[in-house]
């Protein structure tokens, strides 16, 4: 296994379109890194640059102390698992898994041992004589992973491997990937746009948007201390509720409500007195003991909790997530508030110079 270091990596396509801007990341040996972001944010491009499937325009890629920036993909000792499995339909599962080793002309018995070991890990032993079309999507993805495992690469790369699977299978495969990482203790880089996958799998998450890294950190850090409004709204489901307003005399004030700040918030926002800020509150941090009037439009019971959609003062659309079964009807009015220690404040740039507003506290 290996350390991977991406230093000031940039990707500029022919025609001048820049897909990745100044990407810096040090992946430790055995670490599970998840690149997450919306479609077109540059996460797959970054992964493909690590794999060698895309040229790196600027910057350096160091794998285990060796500069691999211009190295051919086959010489990087990296295995990649794709979303569409990329299995050979005319070969059996055994032959698919053994394929890369057969190309390397490894000894047949060594190949056999490696394939059997991978099949054991992935519970594929009974499927080895079948063809890919005889397997389910989840099994095919396991075969694709097995093909990567037999190579015993320095780094595993996963490019949205679960996107083709249904929700239930995605959940079980996610747990299998977690187990696989524990068993192999391998360095893994995983691309997804699904924040659930990112939060559950990652040792560290790299959150990207429009080719820029927005935040790198542990899942809990991104959830509890988002660096900007993009991360705040991207991580968490449903997304965080955002309110524009001002800080005035120890209150967060806007046209809809006036909310008192606690002493810690007052201290943190002292220099923003009279200035525009953005308040962010996650739906699960909305309470029913406040003074803000909330007109309910929709009530979605999810079993363990209820998503309640509505408008504050008939204007601002907000979502609340209450940890119990609720039976609100359209038009019901309740009072809501915020959990004090779970309120996030972001800078508001009145000139709109920044795409995403930085977190204050």
């Amino acid at each position, binding site marked *: 296994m290996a350390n991977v270091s991406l230093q000031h990596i940039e990707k500029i396509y022919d025609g001048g379109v820049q897909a990745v801007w100044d990407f810096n990341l040090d992946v430790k040996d055995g670490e599970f890194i998840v690149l997450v972001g919306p479609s077109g944010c540059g996460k797959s491009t970054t992964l493909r640059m690590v794999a060698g499937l895309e040229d790196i325009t600027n910057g350096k890629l160091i794998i285990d102390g060796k500069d691999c920036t211009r190295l051919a993909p086959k010489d990087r000792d990296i295995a990649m698992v794709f979303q569409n499995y990329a299995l050979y339909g005319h070969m*059996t599962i*055994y*032959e698919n898994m053994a394929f890369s080793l057969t190309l390397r002309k490894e000894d*047949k*018995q060594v190949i*056999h*041992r490696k*394939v*059997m*070991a991978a099949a054991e890990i992935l519970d594929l032993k009974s499927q*080895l*004589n079948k063809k890919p079309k005889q397997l389910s999507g989840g099994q095919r993805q396991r075969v694709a992973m097995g093909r990567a495992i037999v190579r015993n690469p320095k780094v595993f790369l996963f490019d949205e491997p679960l996107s083709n699977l249904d929700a239930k299978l995605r959940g079980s495969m996610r747990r299998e990937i977690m187990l696989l990482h524990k068993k192999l203790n391998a360095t893994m880089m995983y691309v997804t746009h699904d924040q659930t996958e990112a939060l559950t799998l990652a040792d560290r998450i790299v959150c990207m948007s429009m080719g820029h890294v927005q935040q790198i950190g542990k899942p809990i850090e991104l959830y509890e201390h988002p660096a900007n409004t993009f991360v705040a709204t991207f991580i968490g489901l449903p997304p965080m509720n955002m309110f524009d307003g001002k800080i005035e005399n120890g209150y967060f004030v806007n046209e809809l409500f006036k909310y008192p700040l606690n002493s810690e918030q007052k201290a943190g926002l002292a220099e923003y007195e009279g200035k525009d800020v953005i308040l962010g509150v996650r739906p699960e941090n909305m309470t029913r003991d406040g003074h803000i009037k909330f007109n309910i439009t929709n009530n979605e019971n999810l079993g363990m909790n209820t998503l309640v959609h509505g408008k504050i003062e008939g204007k601002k659309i907000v979502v609340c997530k209450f940890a119990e079964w609720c039976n609100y009807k359209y038009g019901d009015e309740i009072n809501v508030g915020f959990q004090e220690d779970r309120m996030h404040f972001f800078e508001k740039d009145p000139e709109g110079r920044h795409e995403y507003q930085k977190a204050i506290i």
Partner: protein
Amino acid sequence: MLKFRKSSVEKDTILQNDILHYKKNKFAGNFALLALVFNCLYFTMLYAIHSADIYKPLIGLSVIVNLLVMLAGFFCSEGIKNYNKKFSIALFVLAAVQIVRIFVYPLTGMVDGWMQGNYYFGAQMSTAGNGVVLIIYLVASAACFIVAGINGLLVALRLEHFDKKLQSGEISVEKELAALDEAERTSSAGEVNNG
């Protein structure tokens, strides 16, 4: 030393035999297909001979035999790939058919002389020349069927014997793989210590 080598060979055999469970017998299968290639060469040459004498009722039977040989040969090729020893017997029968066919057209053609003046691959050939080439094709086809049959039979018997041993618990692939992994770990740990 000898003991070690013997043990090593036995381990190799266990894994080699286990590999058969996951790989097809392409060697035998491909030889059966090669036999069909020679059969194709035989009948294309036979039907290319420009002589009115060849167009007799017997040619219809020859076409049918060719079709049957091609069909049976293909089925046997697939069967033998999957270590089914019954198909080895069928391959021997096909080889016998090819040998018998030598005495039908090539020899009768040579005796009757109707194969004279054939142009094949641009060269004018004598009756004897035509006959010899046809015989070579049939012999090559039969030889390929025999090689495929023998190989298929031997490997199928080897696998059958191995499976019996596996089922009786005399040998265990899992234990073998675990032992080899352990040996590899020990040797790599030794290398690290030495290093």
